[in-house]
Structure formats: structure tokens, C-alpha cells
């Protein structure tokens, strides 16, 4: 196979999207995968061409892959629903269970993509959906939504994915989903981003860059004109310019819980709440969402944790959603499953002497899977983290400056001091032990 792309192309593309959503970088990989799959050699001079190539190849790929997989699985006599899921897994790169778990399918009742788009621009209709209320009550989501919708109209111009009831229904009906995705008469591309807990659906597209510029205080017109939206077309620009400032003037609505911490100048990681409680985890989640879009200024200690860990995010561990990178004291803070499913069943409540003293759920960066890491002394020693000499000695003995793997107990043991308040030591200490 010949060299696929001209020199400099990658740099240009990556640079262009470096401040945008990470999905764009994935796009490069997918196009390359498609090019290799079909053994094609495409010349791409402009980034917009990539979309065309991607779309063209994606359609071909889906058709061929679907046909192959149907043949393969059909011969095996698998149920059509199972076949659909397998095909969906294969062609979308998204684990189908993630989508199913993230979306409360029964909440959505859109007939088709046009119906859905109508809902977006009709507040009355949006309000009938309790999760959309979240969007309307919180301007940042609404801004995302409008920006993205307009951006999608103008820039993407092809449908890649609609994660909604439509998709689910299409899938449940078999492989008609692919007709749905592949319809040539769909004018609008919509990208959904379903929050990890399924509380809201964020639509996003090429305009994260614009939103970021606006949020960072740049001049609106400059941000607008230097964004991708300059290619939108005058009519769309006019609509967007009328809509956006109204929402940008709104203050972000925050929870009473977060407001309490801000008003009292309190750390959100140590929090007023019991470590591991639903309220604490919700507070971290809200803070994480605001932090990720530069809508909140955190204390230095909090900032370090938010930048260096997945705190505030959740992952799935043995079928249950668990908060990531938040150590729990296994003796005094058993996780309450009410957090996940409304049941008062305690998990991970170790017997004395039977487990390590602390545990934390973290994501293995290599596999993407959530694992549980148990750490801490079980021989009865107490953590003397308030003693600077003890911290220094521990750090030296355990070579803490070399412990950088979050999946290992040593990583967490060395950083125990940073979670002092969470774990009931009364104070956080920077650095290692």
C-alpha cells in the first residue's frame, strides 16, 4: 500500500482539532483504518475533505461489514437482536452496552430525526422531558446544544450517529438501523454525548472550540469568526448570533450543595459530606463537569486531583457504577449501593483483618476497565501523616517518586496524605507521604 496521506496533513488536522473534542482525533484513526481496509489511497488536501472521505468510506465499510457479519452470524443461527448488537459493536466502535446503560430509553419518544430536531428547538416540548429540564435550567448545556446543532447543520452535514430511542428502536428491529444511519437524505448530523449517569444528553459537534473561546472570555465576534462557524453561512450565523448572547449572559446554575462549598470556601474533594456518600459523589460529579468546561475555579489541592485523576467521574466495576479515584476507608465508609440503584445494600464492607485498610476504584488506562485497588496496612499500624518526618521516611522507603501507576496499591499508599480529609485524618498534605 502506498503512503496514504500527504506530509503535513496530520499536523494540520490534529492542530486544528487539538482544542476540540477528542472524537476528532479518533476520526483520523478511523479514516486510516478504512483506507487500509479497502486498500485505498486518498489524497486529502483540506480538513473538510476528511469528512467526505470518512463518510464515503464509512458507508462502504458499514455495508460490507454488515453483510459479512450477517452472513457469519446468520449461519450460526444467532437471534437477530444478538446479531444487531454484535454488528453495532463492530461498526460503531462504541460498546453497545455502554449506550444501553447510559440512555434511559423509555424517556425518549421521537418518531424520527426530524421529530427530534423539532424538539430541540421547541422549549415546550423539551420541558416535557425531565432530563431536558436539566438542560434548560443550566445554560451551559443549552449553549452546547444550540452551538452544536448549528454547527452540525453547517459543518458535518452527514449523519454518523444518533444515540436515542431511534437508534435503539432501529437496532431492536434488526439491522434497519444502518439504513437509518445511512440515509442519504438526512441533512443534519447529530452527535450525542450521553452523560455517564444518563442524566442528560449533550449534543456536540465541531464547535467545542468556539464554546471554549467564549468561556475563556474571548471576544464573541472574534471567537465566532475564527471558529468553524465562519463556514456556516450567513443565515445560520444570524440565527446563532441572536440566540447565543441570550444564553451566555445567564449565570450557570449550580446546586445548593456546590454553592455551599463555594460560599464557605471549602474544598469539594474533602467536602462537608461524608466521604463516599451520594451527596459527596454528586458534588464531585458536578464539579468535574464544570471543571471540564472551565466554569469553576478550584482550590489548588482540588485542581491537582481533578487534573491528575478521574475523580468526579465514574466507571463500571463488576456491573455497578463506582466513583473513580476516590479512596474509601473500608472500615468506616462502606459504599452504599443506594448510590446506584436505590437499594440499601452495603458493598465492600470488609471484615477486620480480612482486607486492606483502604480501597479505591480506578480506571486501568491500558484496558479502560475499572478495577478495585486495595491498599494500606493491615497489621494495626496507624498512619502518622501529620508527622513530616514520618511522611519523608515513608516516601523514601517506598520510593514514592517512582510510583506512577494508578492501578497499583503503591501509587495510592504514597498519595494517601493527599486524601487526608476524605479519610478522616483531618487535613490534606501535599506531595507524598
Amino acid at each position, binding site marked *: 500500500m502506498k503512503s496514504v496521506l500527504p506530509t503535513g496533513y496530520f499536523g494540520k488536522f490534529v492542530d486544528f482539532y487539538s482544542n476540540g473534542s477528542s472524537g476528532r482525533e479518533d476520526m483520523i484513526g478511523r479514516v486510516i483504518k478504512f483506507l487500509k481496509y479497502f486498500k485505498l489511497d486518498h489524497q486529502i488536501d483540506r480538513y473538510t475533505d476528511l469528512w467526505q472521505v470518512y463518510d464515503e468510506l464509512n458507508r462502504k465499510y458499514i455495508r460490507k461489514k454488515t453483510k459479512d457479519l450477517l452472513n457469519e452470524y446468520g449461519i450460526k443461527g444467532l437471534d437477530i437482536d444478538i446479531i444487531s448488537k454484535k454488528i453495532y459493536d463492530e461498526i460503531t466502535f462504541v460498546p453497545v452496552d455502554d449506550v444501553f446503560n447510559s440512555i434511559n430509553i423509555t424517556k425518549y419518544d421521537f418518531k424520527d430525526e426530524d421529530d427530534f430536531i423539532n424538539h430541540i428547538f421547541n422549549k415546550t416540548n423539551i420541558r416535557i422531558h425531565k432530563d431536558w429540564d436539566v438542560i434548560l435550567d443550566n445554560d451551559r448545556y443549552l449553549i452546547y446544544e444550540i452551538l452544536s446543532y448549528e454547527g452540525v447543520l453547517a459543518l458535518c452535514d452527514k449523519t454518523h450517529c444518533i444515540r436515542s430511542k431511534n437508534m435503539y428502536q432501529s437496532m431492536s428491529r434488526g439491522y434497519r438501523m444502518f439504513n437509518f444511519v445511512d440515509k442519504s437524505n438526512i441533512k443534519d448530523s447529530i452527535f450525542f454525548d450521553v452523560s455517564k449517569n444518563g442524566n442528560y444528553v449533550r449534543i456536540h459537534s465541531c464547535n467545542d472550540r468556539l464554546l471554549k473561546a467564549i468561556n475563556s472570555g474571548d471576544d464573541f465576534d472574534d471567537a465566532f469568526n475564527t471558529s468553524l462557524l465562519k463556514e456556516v453561512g450567513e443565515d445560520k450565523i444570524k440565527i446563532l448570533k441572536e440566540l447565543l448572547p441570550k444564553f451566555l449572559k445567564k449565570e450557570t446554575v449550580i446546586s445548593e450543595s456546590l454553592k455551599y462549598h463555594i460560599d464557605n470556601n471549602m474544598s469539594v474533594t474533602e467536602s462537608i459530606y461524608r466521604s463516599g*456518600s451520594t*451527596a459527596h459523589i454528586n458534588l464531585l460529579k458536578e464539579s468535574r463537569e464544570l471543571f471540564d468546561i472551565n466554569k469553576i475555579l478550584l482550590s489548588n489541592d482540588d485542581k491537582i486531583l481533578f487534573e491528575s485523576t478521574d475523580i468526579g467521574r465514574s466507571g463500571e466495576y463488576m456491573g455497578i457504577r463506582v466513583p473513580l479515584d476516590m479512596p474509601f476507608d473500608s472500615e468506616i465508609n462502606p459504599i452504599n449501593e443506594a448510590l446506584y440503584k436505590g437499594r440499601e445494600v452495603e458493598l465492600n464492607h470488609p471484615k477486620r483483618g480480612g482486607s486492606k485498610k483502604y480501597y479505591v476504584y480506578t480506571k486501568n488506562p491500558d484496558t479502560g476497565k475499572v478495577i478495585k485497588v486495595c491498599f494500606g496496612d493491615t497489621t494495626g499500624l496507624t498512619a502518622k501523616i501529620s508527622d513530616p518526618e514520618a511522611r519523608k521516611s515513608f516516601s523514601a522507603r517506598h520510593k514514592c517518586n517512582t510510583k506512577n501507576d494508578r492501578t497499583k496499591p503503591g501509587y495510592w499508599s504514597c498519595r494517601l496524605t493527599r486524601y487526608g480529609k476524605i479519610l478522616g485524618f483531618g487535613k490534606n498534605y501535599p506531595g507524598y507521604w
Partner: protein
Amino acid sequence: MKPYIDIERTDEYIIREFGQNIDPIELMWHRDDEDRLIQVIENKDWKIQLDNELPVLLDKVFIPKHKWHRLLKGEGNLKIKIIL
């Protein structure tokens, strides 16, 4: 060592006092095995916090058994009556 002293204890109630010199770290999150009805006898800015709620000024409060809760230190001593 407990962070309080029981001034009076009967089969029906306990009069309990928390001193102003208590280290706040001793007021840990905990759960009780029985329902508790708390009445305040003497309080200045001491607060109570139930699990998943923000702290509120301690007044008459019912704490269901096994409900996580804790006290937050205020000024002076805190004297309460715990109805058993």
C-alpha cells in the same frame, strides 16, 4: 475516650454534654443502632449534619437508626437530651 460526658442517664433519656474544648475531628460520622430523638438544652451554633444533607443548626431532631450523622462544633458547650 468519648468526646462527651453523660450528665444523667435513665431508661428514658440521656442528658449529654459536649465540651467547648473538644477537637472537632473527634466528632466523627457515625451511625446508631436505635432511633434517636434529640432535644436541645443548651446550644450556641453547634450544628448537626445528616447523611447527604447540609449541616443545620442543631434543634429538635429525629435521627433514624443506622442513619449516618455527625455533629459540627459551635461555640461553648452543647447540652442535649437524647430520648431513648
